[in-house]
């Protein structure tokens, strides 16, 4: 395509947006609103994931070993545990260490446990952190099958809650994106339909002077793309301002969860470029698709 044709397309797209500015504004408004909601749900998902990641790392499984297991048996259990694929970390806690920690936790009252040093009732154990909580049952049964393992203590409820929270948010996020993409597609398509309708005479003339279908269609597609780019940029800037404000509010806040939130909040800069790319892709995609739906109808020879 010639540079003059490209500049003609852009000029026509801009002119059309400006000429039908009320309709264009409405379309940009709806697109911005949709992108904002999608962006907000993306940020929410990112933050929940970051928080869930923290909770997951806090969710430990205690693996208690048979008292009979000693020496080589312990090495065997160690190797087997570390070989499992869903394991993030494995820490061995000997019975002596266990008792020491317990005594330390009791502080001054720890001396009450001194009589246990001679005849330690605790078992050798492993503190295991899982990688993926949704596969907890599978991993637990693998651990249980290792010779030398006696009992396992794990908080299944916690694991389930975290897993279902993650699933729920992923599903809700997906639903939000699908529904809003549908809504904005309809709005953009109708905006373009109105511009196509208002220019049907021009389209007729173009056909008589021998314009190809592509040439006739491109200004409308350019208009759709421009609507997408403008909306994406506005939505991105609004979300940036809004999120930065929210982060400041959380960091200055002194409410119950503030501590955990503060340390796990996702900074905007870490998602900014990806988010703008998503917005552009979404805006341009919807703009292009929306403008292609109805232009065909008016192009019948």
């Amino acid at each position, binding site marked *: *395509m*010639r540079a*003059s*044709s490209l500049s*003609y397309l852009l000029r026509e797209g801009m*002119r059309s947006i400006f000429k039908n500015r009320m309709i264009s504004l409405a379309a940009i408004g709806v697109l911005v609103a949709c992108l904002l909601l999608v962006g907000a749900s993306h940020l929410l998902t990112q933050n929940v994931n970051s928080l869930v990641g923290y909770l997951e790392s806090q969710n430990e499984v205690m693996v208690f070993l048979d008292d009979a297991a000693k020496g080589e048996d312990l090495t065997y259990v160690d190797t087997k545990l570390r070989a499992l694929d869903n394991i993030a970390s494995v820490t061995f806690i000997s019975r002596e260490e266990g008792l020491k920690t317990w005594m330390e936790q009791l502080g001054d009252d720890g001396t009450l446990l001194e009589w246990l040093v001679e005849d330690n009732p605790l078992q050798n154990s492993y503190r295991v952190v899982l990688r993926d909580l949704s596969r907890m049952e599978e991993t637990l049964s693998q651990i249980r099958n290792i010779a030398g393992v006696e009992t396992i203590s794990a908080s299944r409820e916690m694991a389930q809650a975290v897993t279902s929270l993650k699933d729920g948010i992923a599903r809700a996020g997906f639903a939000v994106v699908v529904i809003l993409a549908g809504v904005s597609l309809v709005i953009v398509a109708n905006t373009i339909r109105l511009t196509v309708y208002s220019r049907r*005479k*021009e389209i*007729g*003339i*173009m*056909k*008589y*002077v*021998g*314009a*190809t*279908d592509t*040439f006739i269609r491109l200004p409308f597609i350019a208009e759709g793309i421009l609507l997408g780019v403008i909306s994406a940029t506005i939505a991105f800037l609004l979300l940036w301002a809004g999120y930065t404000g929210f982060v400041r509010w959380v960091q200055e806040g002194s409410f119950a969860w503030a501590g955990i939130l503060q340390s796990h909040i996702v900074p905007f800069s870490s998602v900014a470029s990806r988010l703008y790319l998503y917005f552009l892709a979404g805006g341009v995609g919807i703009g292009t698709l929306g403008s292609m739906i109805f232009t065909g109808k008016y192009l019948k*020879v």
Partner: protein
Amino acid sequence: MVHFEHVKKNYADGLCALEDVNLHVDKGEFVFIVGASGAGKSTLLKLILREELPTAGTVRVNNVDVARLRRREIPFFRRSIGVVFQDFRLIPHMTVYENVAFALRVTNAPVREIRKRVPFFLNLVGLADKARQMPEHLSGGEQQRVSLARALVNTPSLLIADEPTGNIDPAMSCDIVDLLGEINRCGTTVLMVTHQIPLVQRFGHRTVAISQGRVVHDGRIGGGSARKQS
């Protein structure tokens, strides 16, 4: 240039617009097409422009059988035909210059070419000094001349004028037909649809009369050798 052989056109609603039309226009001819409204003149033009397809018979324009044109070939076929309408059909938000340049732009012509051709054709129709005006500020006759410049800028071998003088006062009408005559003398075949019989008589070109979908007269009106159709 334009050949109709036993052409019949029925519309989907059962209307029979053309019935066994045979018409041959040679290269370089100037032909008037006359007839009452509903006689089939518009259908004739639509068939030439490949807006419609014949129900039976063949329509050949520039040695192209219009029925055999593929959809994507139609725009390129139309570039060899210039069209002028009764209602001018200028784009209101473009200047005179832009309206003419538009026809070149859709063919992806280089800017250099546009800058050369547009002034030439505006000069030809006598509107070189109005290039920067908007169509609404021009008289009917002037608007039609812009439309003519637009039709000619791609140097078509065939020019179709659909009642070009229908919205113009009689004096201006003669100017337009004079202009069409000049274009014709330069080698362009001209087909002009009109129902202004005085104009036809005055210029004395070959005249094809259509009535109820049939060619009922072919020849000069008021003299010359009329070829009565059987």
